[in-house]
């Protein structure tokens, strides 16, 4: 059973000098109780993907084709009131910067009360739930923490509070957008462990977006590799990290200094730049930077699948 099923999603933005296709033919599955990681460099469409799922695209963005199935409904067709029911209740989000996620002029108690307005509980019960949630994310002295304001907490504590708020309504899907980028390595470890514990406790699924390959490898069951608005490869974490099929995935893994065990003066890179999304080239999108590029790559490769490992590359064609 998939909690979230994205099929052939295409999103474009009206921009100066023509339309910019930010997502092209994106298909992603998020199975129940599963953590799916999305990796890709900046500009690969990770944020557009989140905004499309939540239907929070800016005015100049539009969903051109495809469907987003979540709990037996197509989110691309859902109206505004429907989406308001879903956001925060069934799908919640943890963002990169915890300071931006919290309201600086409200106390933690007030903010945690506000997000429960649809729960139908009394004030006392709501407060008790807030307290319980803070305890679960291991905030020291949660009673006094409720009375304090966001600026009185460190970055790591703020992110814990943001996670507590996201998990409070026990959503079916949690979207985590680079939740540890602003944090130190030792905190990162603690936050990841916390998210994993809460995820298995509540039994929700998670879409984890990051460019940190080490974190993805450690946390995720399945991995989606995106490049310039397209999904190039997806599969289980083991398939992607141990046996990458797409040349881009291979190069990306090589680039991570963590994958080189011996010390080297020259680190691998991927020469070239992401193509202009306003003038999408025909055929394979990675063609211009690929070391294996051939004539056949000027035609769009089909998606090939075996054992849940999907790839779009002519080198894998039978």
């Amino acid at each position, binding site marked *: 059973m998939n909690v979230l099923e994205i099929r052939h999603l295409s999103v474009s933005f009206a921009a100066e000098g023509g339309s910019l296709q930010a997502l092209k033919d994106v298909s992603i599955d998020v199975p129940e109780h599963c953590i799916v990681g999305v990796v890709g*460099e*900046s500009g690969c469409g990770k944020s557009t993907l989140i905004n499309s799922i939540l239907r929070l695209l800016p005015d100049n963005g539009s969903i051109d084709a495809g469907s987003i199935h979540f709990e037996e409904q197509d989110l691309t067709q859902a109206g505004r009131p429907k989406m308001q029911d879903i956001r925060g209740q069934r799908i919640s989000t943890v963002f990169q910067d915890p300071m931006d996620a919290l309201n600086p002029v409200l106390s933690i108690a007030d903010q945690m009360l506000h997000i429960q307005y649809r729960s139908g509980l009394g004030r006392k019960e709501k407060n008790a739930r807030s307290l319980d949630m803070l305890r679960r994310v291991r905030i*020291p002295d949660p009673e006094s923490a409720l009375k304090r304001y966001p600026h009185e907490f*460190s*970055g*790591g*504590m703020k992110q814990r509070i943001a996670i507590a708020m996201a998990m409070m309504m026990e959503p079916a899907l949690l979207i985590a957008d680079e939740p540890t980028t602003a944090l*130190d*390595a*030792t*905190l*990162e*470890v*603690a936050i*990841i*462990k916390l998210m*994993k514990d809460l995820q298995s406790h509540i039994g929700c699924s998670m879409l984890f977006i990051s*460019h*940190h*390959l*080490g*974190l*993805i*490898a*450690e*946390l995720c069951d399945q991995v989606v590799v995106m490049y310039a608005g397209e999904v190039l490869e997806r599969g289980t*974490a*083991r398939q992607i*990290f*141990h046996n990458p099929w797409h040349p881009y995935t291979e*190069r*990306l*893994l090589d*680039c*991570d*200094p*963590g*994958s*080189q065990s011996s*010390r*080297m*003066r*020259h*680190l*691998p*890179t*991927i020469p070239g730049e992401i193509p202009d999304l306003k003038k999408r080239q025909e055929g394979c999108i990675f063609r211009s930077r690929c070391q294996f590029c051939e004539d056949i790559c000027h035609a769009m490769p089909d998606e090939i699948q075996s054992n849940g490992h999907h790839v779009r590359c002519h080198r894998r064609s039978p």
Partner: protein
Amino acid sequence: MILSVRDLEVTFRAGPWFNRRPIVAVAKVSFDLDAGETFAIVGESGSGKTTLAHAINGLQETSNGEVLFMDEKVDVSRSRAVKPLRRHMSMMFQDPVGSLSPRMKVGDLVAEPFIIHKIRKNLKEEVQRLLSLVGLSGDFADRYPHQLSGGQARRIGVARAIALEPELIIADEPTAGLDVSVQGEVLNLLSDLRERLGLAMIFISHNLHVVHHVADRMAVMYLGRIVESGNTEEIFGAPAHPYTATLLSAIPNPDPDKVRERISLSSEVPSLLNRPSGCEFHTRCPWAHERCSTESPYHQNSGLRRVACHAPLDPGAQPPCAERAG
């Protein structure tokens, strides 16, 4: 020896006027740097890395100790004396776009060091030379910073830093916020230039993977103090200070089958206003015993290695309460 830092201390004052309290951001830091050497400073946020960098560059007043650069004292109070030194010691600031003035074109930004130090040259030619040195085409000179990507802005930062062919570059988180492929490009660029120009470099980072590949020697800072320093390879091979061991164990490996033994810390970083007694890491250290909370440890030397710990770890030591992550 090109740079020598001796017992350097930086103190800030915090709190309302009737209750000013000193915050020691950098405490008794000493190290030396040879010409052409790369020295990394690692630590969590708030450990005083950036303050230390600013103090070395003469951008931050110090309360104690001294910085000797090319046998001359860096003294903030005598800014006229510091300015000629900065010609030989340049700085790359943390935020690549934020450190470029949004009102200036790239060409003017790259030419700025020559103008500040009143060096007469054909600026147009110099700008073109520097841009090609950092791998950007000449027409970038007419762009504004907001038209640059993070990686390109970082390259402009590098071009500005090497413009005057300095002896030392202080790079504060030069790859923070960059994609892995771009990060590799920037690091390769720095290492090329280092070889070609014989630059010494102070490399501040919290990315230990990067430090491993780049630095000859490294120092680990905690609450403004250096707790361990030595050869990078040796420290990665066998960390002696529990804090170093913790940091190293926190790096996730890009392999789903290699989830490592994690040393988990019990509490958060203590406040600088309220430093713990004895060894300042004892509140979070899984190996701490009674002596650690009362007596501060001295630096123990063995060869190039310096460790401030009462009971340095043996190679491969496991914490008393090891926890398996994942």
